[in-house]
């Protein structure tokens, strides 16, 4: 029998070596360590530093770290230092879940700040639910979620659209073209947009979804020309935003007659495409870098000083920053004794903080956040000129479009009748 001479014999030694290399964490430290032991409060920081969403998520990581440093420089929380455990989930949902497990179980963090995409939030949710930990999520998102293990500090559809749509109808007209990337966020935002338009007697002349990362918009732009909408309502995300704006301008369309109103274009996308391509278009968000408030001047200045002169702040990094301060206030309220994620959650309800965008508050009813929606018009400088701002903070209603459903502290409930 001459089977395969080049085959190898395998001694047990190789197996041992390989197994030891494969399982370097068998001797993990302090598996039974309590939360906030030894005068330290451990928190997880879970934003991708590599991979497809690395650019935006790095800015979230930076904002979070900066807030933690500020808190520690001011003496920590009740004399305890906040210790960040930083992970790189590499823009991959599975890695997000793996790293979340390490933060929650391995490192015993009392809370984790993280995620940009909904997909990554959905991937870590089972971990937080299983171990009753707390996840702080700074991104604007589609709503319709009501986990008892998440604090949501980004905007939900009613906060971004309630003022925007009437304003657009009043200033430009009733014909809307809806364009978005093909995933749940744009679809849900468009559901809300259609309800609002119906109330105002508006009309949707086209609705289209392009694949994520799509960069060829000539067919779409031809449809703009054909249907002649008054407003192009855009929930296109990522690099596609850049392509869409450039091709819009190249096709000779005029933002004065047919502006794009976006929920997803921030200072970062505008910087990537160049201010001249964004000029004249609009974005609705609770925060713009150019917003004029003492808190924001301080925030922008500190951010540039810490991370570099060319860095921009945006409507995701601002909540990533202020949510750490909300966390701090919640923990401060708890005193020095035992700190569990459940305690933090309860203590966080109703907390107010003077954020760069204005005074924000965590709604005890649903763990979402009261915010200050604004409408900005992009300038060639790459900054937005704020032309409308809400007169009062706007309540978060994650189930706004679904009258039968309400988010409560115990999760989502159906209203009877």
């Amino acid at each position, binding site marked *: 029998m001459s089977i395969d001479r080049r085959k*190898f014999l395998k001694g047990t030694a190789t197996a041992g070596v390989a*197994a030891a290399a494969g399982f370097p964490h068998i001797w993990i430290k302090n598996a039974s360590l309590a939360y906030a032991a030894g005068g330290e409060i451990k928190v997880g920081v879970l934003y991708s530093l590599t991979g497809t969403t690395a650019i935006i998520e790095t800015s979230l990581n930076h904002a979070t770290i900066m807030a933690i440093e500020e808190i520690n420089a001011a003496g920590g929380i009740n004399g305890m230092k906040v210790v960040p455990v930083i992970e790189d989930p590499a823009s991959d949902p599975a890695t997000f879940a793996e790293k979340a497990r390490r933060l929650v179980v391995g490192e015993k963090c009392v809370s984790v700040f993280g995620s940009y995409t909904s997909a990554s939030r959905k991937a870590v949710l089972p971990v937080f639910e299983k171990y009753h930990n707390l996840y702080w999520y700074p991104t604007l998102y589609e709503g319709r979620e009501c986990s008892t293990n998440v604090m949501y500090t980004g905007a939900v559809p009613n906060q971004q659209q309630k003022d925007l749509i009437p304003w657009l109808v009043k200033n430009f007209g009733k014909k809307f073209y809806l364009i978005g990337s093909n995933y749940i966020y744009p679809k849900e935002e468009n559901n809300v947009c259609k309800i609002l338009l119906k109330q105002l007697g508006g009309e949707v002349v086209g609705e289209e979804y392009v694949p994520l990362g799509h960069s060829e918009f000539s067919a779409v732009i031809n449809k703009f020309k054909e249907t002649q909408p008054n407003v192009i309502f855009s929930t296109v995300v990522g690099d596609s935003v850049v392509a869409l704006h450039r091709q819009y301008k190249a096709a000779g369309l005029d933002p004065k007659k047919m502006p794009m109103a976006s929920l997803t274009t921030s200072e970062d996308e505008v910087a990537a495409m160049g201010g001249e391509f964004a000029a004249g278009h609009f974005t609705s968000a609770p925060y713009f870098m150019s917003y004029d408030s003492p808190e924001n001047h301080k925030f922008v200045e500190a951010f540039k000083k810490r991370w570099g002169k060319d860095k921009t702040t945006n409507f995701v990094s601002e909540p990533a920053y202020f949510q750490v301060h909300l966390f701090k206030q919640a923990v401060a309220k708890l005193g020095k004794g035992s700190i569990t994620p459940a305690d933090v959650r309860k203590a966080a309800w109703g907390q107010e903080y003077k954020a760069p965008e204005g005074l924000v508050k965590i709604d005890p009813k649903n763990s979402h956040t009261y915010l200050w929606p604004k409408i900005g018009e992009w300038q060639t400088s790459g900054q937005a000129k704020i032309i409308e701002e809400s007169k009062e903070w706007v309540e978060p209603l994650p189930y706004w479009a679904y009258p039968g459903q309400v988010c409560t502290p115990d999760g989502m409930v159906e209203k009877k009748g």
Partner: protein
Amino acid sequence: MTSQRQALHRLGGYAAVCVLILLVPLFVSDGYLLNKFARYLVFGILSLALSLSWGYAGILNLGQAAGFGLGSYCMAMALKLRTIPIQTGAGGLPDFMVWNNVHTLPWFWQPFHSYAFALLAGIGVPVLVAFLIGWFVFRARVSGVYVAIITLAMLVVINLVIIDQQRYTGGFNGITDLTTFKVFGVEFGAYSVSTYYLAAVILTLLLFLGLALMNSKTGLILQAIRDDETRVRYFGYDVANYQNFIFCVSAGVAGLAGMLYTLVMEFASPTFLAVPISLSIVIWCAVGGRASLLGAALGAIVVTGVQGSLSDSKTFLDTWMLIMGALFIVVVLFLPNGLISIVDVIRDKRERRRLAAAAGAPRRTAVVAPSRSAAR
């Protein structure tokens, strides 16, 4: 050294590794670590699957993750249908369907109410897809790099369809919020010992079954095809049939790994059948040793293990990808047959030394350092 002795040694090596893997829960009781190791074992199974087709039959399948992802989705669909829908309240309809304004469960979701069907589908669907592709590819005598291109394209197509059909697949978010898999009264939770053992036992079985297959007549013909396809054809064998057979087996094993992965990760995502993971499998295989089932499996376990600990450590937070890249290059340059071939290299050196000593005049062995530390 006789080949029989070699075969015995190999069996011993396989058995030793399997015993080690099965013993892990005796020393590790922490659910988080068990979960993490179970995840590495699943990657080991996946890498073994590629070794079957690439290492033994020379079919470089760059779309190996397709079977993996399909298996994962089959399992997730079955678990999703058993989840009490906390987000929606609608009667048995997965939450993401409600969000996408779907009102009735689509027909292809219906049979997933049965676990038996789901388990069969988790292996059967990948096999079916592989069979159809393989039928056209191998009948047409496509080989080498073109197989790689076609399989990669197939992967991208399946991935795009799943992302695009979010009404039925959960799109970009995948299928999340799943119940715990339970059969015969045993719960296979993500953090449980039972799930670890399930992965470990399946890996063990596959290692030995794979070995048996590759030492059977079919296995020998496959290896002959890898080495010289034309010659085997002239011997009168139906090369395409053999190739398609191993291509399907490999896809089925990947599907099995995918089902396990859903249990371990508690969700299914389109990233499970995306290009990055598919290419990672090739890397694991190459690093471990693609022409050895054990090598391929260990390659996956070692690479993902090192990757996990490097990216966890504060020191390497910014550089871990660079270090991984450097490691791959070193392995490929100096151990082209993978880490498992260390054993080979050492044995050859000893053999040469012994022969030289026997001949009385050591000629080239002067530079060879005695290697008493490794191998036995």
